[in-house]
């Protein structure tokens, strides 16, 4: 006699998996990782490995502590029962966070600082919120901000070597150094595009990042909406600022900002993180606008030279608001276009009248 199983419709599933999505991000990160190893050698390798071990290891430990063990006589069996639900995603997901985290720190950052950041990211930002899918804040950004605030000296205090400075050294130069048009002499745009500049390990080569972006978009493992929305916002606002500040070089001013700091890396690998994104199409356009405009505002008016991670964490807090079912819908309603347009124009005016201190 044949054994029939009870199920409910639908009975077929698409050939996709969360594992594939995570693996895709890891593959997309490869050009950046390879470039960072090429550029920084063992420094990069060690930091990536430390970050991987800390994140995957701590997730495994925290995961086990969060599960209820079954009653068994042997301690080993009780331990084993805690890991019944442990899957490949408990390795790939923290691996993605770990590599991203390693890519947004400087190559000379002390190892204990790397461990602290990775541990904070995985434990506080992820596991305390409930693990995969439940985190509100981007894990890598949370870890980066934590060590950025706790160990500020390591990032901005000691200008021993060029490579020690992170968060966009070209950006630091524009504020504390010679000022914009002259920074182009020490940091030509082509070098910035290829990654021949100091900075955080994965953020410097725009070329490697763009390769990863193309892969992610082809595989549809990232949503193009956040990428387009944030890049367009960033480019337009920076063009306006450039037009006001350096009318002759507005375009290269914009390019300078796009290629410096963590904006490109953040746009491709961090704000596309689906877990911390809204779940509707209009919501993702709004999210992109929010992150990019915050980065612009921090760069132009803020106390920090760079602010992708800050902008991201700040925007993460707005995601539940954007997703609130009272108004969240997957349809593009007139209200969305009006709101998006008004916000864009308002931001453009703020930037235009705000930069340069002149009113």
């Amino acid at each position, binding site marked *: 006699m044949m054994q029939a199983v009870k199920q409910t*419709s639908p009975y077929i599933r698409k050939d996709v998996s969360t594992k*594939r999505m995570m693996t895709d991000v890891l593959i997309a990160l490869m050009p950046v990782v390879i470039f960072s190893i090429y550029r920084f050698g063992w420094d990069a390798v060690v930091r990536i490995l430390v970050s991987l071990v800390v994140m995957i290891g701590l997730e495994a430990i925290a995961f086990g502590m969060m599960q209820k063990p079954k009653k068994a006589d042997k301690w080993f069996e009780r331990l084993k029962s805690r890991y019944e639900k442990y*899957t490949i995603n408990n390795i790939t997901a923290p691996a993605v966070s770990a590599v991203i985290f390693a890519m947004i720190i400087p190559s000379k950052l002390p190892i204990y600082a790397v461990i602290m950041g990775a541990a904070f990211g995985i434990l506080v930002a992820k596991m305390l919120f409930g693990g995969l*899918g439940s985190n509100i804040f981007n894990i890598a950004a949370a870890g980066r901000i934590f060590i950025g605030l706790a160990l500020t000296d390591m990032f901005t205090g000691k200008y021993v070597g060029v490579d020690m400075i992170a968060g966009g050294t070209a950006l630091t130069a524009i504020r504390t150094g010679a000022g914009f048009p002259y920074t182009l002499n020490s940091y030509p745009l082509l070098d910035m595009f290829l990654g021949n500049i100091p900075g955080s390990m994965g953020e410097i080569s725009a070329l490697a990042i763009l390769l990863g972006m193309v892969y992610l978009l082809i595989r549809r493992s990232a949503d193009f909406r956040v990428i387009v929305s944030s890049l367009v916002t960033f480019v337009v606002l920076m063009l306006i600022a450039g037009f006001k500040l350096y009318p002759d070089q507005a375009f290269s001013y914009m390019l300078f900002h796009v290629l410096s700091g963590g904006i490109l890396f953040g746009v491709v690998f961090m704000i596309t993180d689906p877990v*911390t994104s809204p*779940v509707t199409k209009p919501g993702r356009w709004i999210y992109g606008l929010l992150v990019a405009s915050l980065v612009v505002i921090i760069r132009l008016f803020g106390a920090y030279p760079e602010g992708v991670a800050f902008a991201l964490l700040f925007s993460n807090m707005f995601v539940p608001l954007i997703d609130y079912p009272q108004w969240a819908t997957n349809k593009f309603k007139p209200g969305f276009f009006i709101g998006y347009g008004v916000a864009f124009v308002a931001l453009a005016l703020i930037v235009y009248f705000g930069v340069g201190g002149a009113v």
Partner: protein
Amino acid sequence: MIAKTRCIPDGKKELKKLPTEHYTEAKYLYYPVTSARCPEGETCVRGGQFVKIGEVIGTRKGAFFEQPMHATVSGEVLGNEKHIDQSGKMVDCLIVKNDFKYELHESIQDRTDAEIDALTKDDFVEIVKEAGLVGLGGSAFPSYIKLSTKDQIDVVLANGVECEPNLISDYGLMMTNPRAVIEGLIFAMKASGAKKGVIAIKKKYKEIHERLEFCLHEFSQYDIKVQSVGNFYPQGWELMTIKNALGIKIPQGELLSKYGVLNFNVSTLASIYAAVRHRLPVLERYISLSGNGIHNKNFRARIGTLMTELIASAGGYKEPEKPKVLILGGPMMGVNVTSDDIVMTHTTTSLIVQNDETLIEEPCVHCASCVYSCPVEIQPVQIMNAYKVRDKDMLKKLEVNKCIECGLCSFVCPSKIHLTEHMRKAKSFASK
């Protein structure tokens, strides 16, 4: 992956290649006395009585309509037995022993052209009612109620999209008997007073397009056209078919007739043709056995045939030691049954047998594939979250009642979360 999914692998190509067997060997035929829409019913024949094809053997009673049952073979009435019908429930069935003579009842006589021309609107409705015709696309809604609408009908849509994977019943019908579909459409137009008829089929069915067009040359006095629509799922959902084939956007929950549209499955139209022209009820349907757990085969079989016979005739199950999932209908919206003791009814067009695969649910990563893919533009993931905390107000705000249970949200989920099941539970919870 983070994108709208509309194309699903349909497995029809392989099924179409298989031959279709006309199965007439059934020794006993079983006629459910009740159905999902008709909770009560009674028979009007006695054990030992001899019945012929097309003879009324009983009546099923619904809330606001009655539906006659017809014998589909000639033979002796034996008694009652319980079997599973299309809805997956055990129902009482009347047994008729086949004498293999296939004698037609005296009432089954063709109408002449002159007789048909003389039929009024009310006559058509009456004929459809007497023949017990129901929506053969799966709804089993009585066709005469649709036809007897008081609203002004402009266009009758013949829905031949059949967007579910593995279903080729309508395809087989349109391929072998396009004339019945077209004439049925004409009768439906006459019955409803519509001037226009449109047959909607999938774009990729070029062969059907040609056949229908060729056949339409004979009926050039009628305004009927064949309209190709996209090869998407759920294109066969009536509101989507109407939108894409006619360009009329009808909000959910509104009556189609208010917008001047009537929508019939092509098989229903063919049954209207048979009822009007030949005074015949639905006697046979195309049915396919598919899936990786069974020897695949297509049949044309009498209503009332037991599925176990068809399965045996096709060659039985593959790998019988593995647990199986039995599905009546398509793999996206079909009904799950736990026994193969199934009797063929009007809406039984497919049995899918799959080897059971255990899916492990991962946590939701908010990729929003379900939101992007939802054809009614609601947000499955938000509904699931609201249902988990039993937030009734939120569920209403999220318009959970719009859900048509097409199954796409579960289908696309990379974490293999069974969203459609959450939708169903949320729906019943919200309406409590």
